[in-house]
């Protein structure tokens, strides 16, 4: 039984981590493409139009990857989490089916039109198709977050005698207090990724002294979008989310902040330290007193319950992983604000394009927003443990009753092998597109 749960979780974690490399870019990038296309409509400078079309090519590769790695996500609800699907499908099936109907069709239809139809449609309609792609991809995020919000903080349901969750109020799925903060935080984080990708391509072009006109445009746009979104990720959206966790999942909050013991005079904020689960304390801790109480409740001396206040069964089952995920996310987020603020300062001083060290830094930072996004999701998902539906349905009660661990390990190994090949394909395709550059092809 234990190893069944372990392999089911590992397979889901692996496939969702790989999958989420792609949508986090497409959501943010679609917004920036709409921006370029809008600029082009206003000023008719060809550069902006080419930029929009160039990034739509990168969008399309990521979208395709998102589709082929997304189908396994949907299937796995049934294949590996059958009991969970049976019990909650009447509710989360709603939001997942809506995602398919309202966002994938929109995204895929208008993506094809954006790529093939510019000459047929004229510029205004072309802008509109770009906007609809953006709308589709953000709607997809909205429905996925609505699904996840229900698992984090279930609303609008009734539980029948046979254990089934049935929907009792549809609109509550979308007015869930967990949803809006999580959605905005997630979308801003995805803009961070796309802004860093854009700035990084820009820095690469400048450093390589090829397509450098576009390099400057990409870098400038990336830095501006990057700074704004990095700030918005932390405040107010990140702050808002943390307060939600403190309020609705206090055990998870204590674990992710690494508070083992309750301090009566207010909780400290931990910057660094390693959870020691034997001694129930943090090793090598560096912390600032009272800050956490202030950030969470705006009161310096407000008591925040530590992990000692909870039964072990109520706490997440992997506290170190949760703690590290959260701290990596927050730490990286802080670095992003710093780097982007510095870059914007030098952009304003008109020095950025010649500052090799900063350009190299921006170029190499590109994997980190991905890591921050993914550890952010780990924080949400590990924090919800040991439940699938917080407080109501245990993870161990959600797996497929008939699928043996040997079968799951077999399919997990298959996914690992196939995704390595897929990852290679992705890098080759994106690499070729970047190398070719945004200058239109000559026929």
């Amino acid at each position, binding site marked *: 039984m234990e190893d069944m749960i372990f392999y089911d979780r590992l397979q889901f974690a692996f496939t969702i981590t790989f999958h989420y490399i792609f949508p986090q870019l497409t959501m943010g990038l679609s917004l920036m493409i709409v921006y370029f296309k809008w600029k082009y409509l206003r000023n008719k400078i060809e550069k902006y139009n080419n930029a929009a079309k160039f990034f739509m090519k990168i969008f399309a590769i990521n979208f395709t990857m998102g589709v082929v790695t997304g189908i396994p996500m949907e299937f796995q609800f049934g294949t590996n989490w059958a009991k969970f699907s049976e019990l909650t499908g009447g509710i989360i099936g709603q939001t997942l089916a809506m995602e398919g109907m309202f966002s994938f069709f929109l995204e895929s239809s208008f993506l094809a*039109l954006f790529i093939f139809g510019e000459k047929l449609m004229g510029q205004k309609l072309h802008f509109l198709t770009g906007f609809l792609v953006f709308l589709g991809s953000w709607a997809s995020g909205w429905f996925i977050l609505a699904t996840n919000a229900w698992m984090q903080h279930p609303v609008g349901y009734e539980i029948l005698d046979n254990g089934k969750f049935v*929907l009792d109020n549809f609109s509550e799925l979308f007015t869930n207090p967990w949803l809006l903060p999580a959605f905005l935080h997630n979308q801003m984080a995805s803009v961070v990724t796309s802004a860093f990708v854009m700035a990084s391509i820009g820095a690469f072009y400048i450093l390589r002294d090829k397509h450098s006109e576009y390099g400057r445009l990409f870098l400038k746009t990336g830095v501006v979008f990057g700074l704004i979104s990095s700030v918005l990720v932390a405040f107010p959206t990140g702050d808002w989310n943390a307060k939600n966790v403190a309020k609705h999942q206090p055990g998870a909050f204590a674990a992710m902040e690494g508070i083992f013991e309750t301090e009566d005079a207010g909780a400290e904020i931990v910057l660094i330290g390693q959870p020691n689960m034997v001694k129930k304390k943090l090793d090598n801790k560096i912390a600032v007193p009272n800050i956490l109480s202030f950030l969470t409740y705006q009161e310096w001396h407000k008591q925040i319950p530590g992990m000692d206040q909870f039964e072990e069964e109520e706490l997440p089952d992997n506290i170190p992983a949760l703690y590290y995920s959260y701290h990596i996310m927050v730490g990286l987020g802080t670095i992003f604000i710093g780097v982007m603020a510095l870059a914007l300062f030098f952009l304003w001083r008109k020095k950025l394009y010649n500052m090799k060290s900063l350009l190299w830094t921006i170029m190499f930072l590109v994997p980190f927003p991905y890591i921050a996004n993914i550890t952010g999701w780990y924080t949400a998902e590990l924090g919800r443990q040991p439940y699938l539906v917080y407080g109501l349905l245990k993870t161990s009660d959600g797996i497929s009753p008939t699928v043996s661990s040997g079968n799951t390990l077999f399919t997990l190994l298959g996914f690992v092998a196939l995704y390595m090949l897929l990852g290679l394909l992705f890098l080759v395709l994106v690499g070729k597109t970047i190398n070719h550059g945004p200058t239109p092809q000559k026929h």
Partner: protein
Amino acid sequence: MEIFWYIAIGIVLTVFFILDGYDFGAGIIHLFFAKEEKDKEVITKSAGLFWDSNEVWLVAAGGMLFMAFPTFYASVFSGFYLPLIIVLWLIIFRAIGLEFRGQFKYQMWKDIWDKSFGVSSLLLALFFGIALGNIVRGVNLGSVENGVSAHEGHYFFLPLWDSSFSPLTDHPGVIDWFTIIIGLIAVVTLAIHGANWIILKTNSSINKKLKGVIFKLNIALAALTIFSLVVWQNVNSNSLDNFIHKPYLMLFPIIYLTGLIGLFFVKKIKKNSHAFLLSTLLILGGITSSLASLFPVILPSINNKHEDLTIYNTSASEYGLSVALIWGIIGFALIVVYFIIQKRLMSGKIDNMDYGH
């Protein structure tokens, strides 16, 4: 309300098989008949331009099934665990072949991606047919052995095959001689459909030859169809009841027959779109006839201990289904609009169209 959702999901699934069916079929034709590089390129393009938007229909069908019939979704997806995951791998592998092909200069590399596209298309068609065969044959619900159930009555687990390869044992596997026959029918049907698609959308040099291929495949299909109908009776003895009690359901087999008979005249048909329509009828008629023969059952039980899964004992709550009806109609109307816009702009031969990604 259950019936509405059953029909809606049936439509979305059928549309998926009609749309993705042509690019699976193009893959099969590509594997066996495309010899020159120019033809290979244009055939992969005729699939490569469209496959991802076609597969969105699969995602939509999955989502709707999950929402409307969660117990069925849970039971079937976990019960057919291995074949479903293998289908996922094939879908991914096929996509890799399609997308990688154009990125390489040397024929040696193009060839290997062509094979991965062709072989996975063929296997997918086979597996989808086998899946349909499993649904009409039924499974050992509750995994009953010697009168004892190993699981709750709506769960089961099927190995890929049982050593007897027979549909008539108490615990058949996914692959047996009956499901293989249905699998072959699917392969031949989609090959015909794909050939029609290639003729319709490209100027490849094998277009002329393909008409003859369609004719021959159609003979094979007619033979397989008759053979399968004979054995079908042995595998599921209730298979004709619905058609006897509700004669209007005969419409679906008639649709299939129209396609089958019509395609014997493929060489005389002037308009390529008419031939494509006939193979569309084949898919439409084939799927709907199979579903109609079971209705309202969606997965028969082959033991006496547990009931068949029907649309009534696997559905979500009445309230959930009604709310979804409202957004479902809006969503569906929007999809039709996108579809019309897209097909209008993407009509005609694709040989000279830019390959975007």
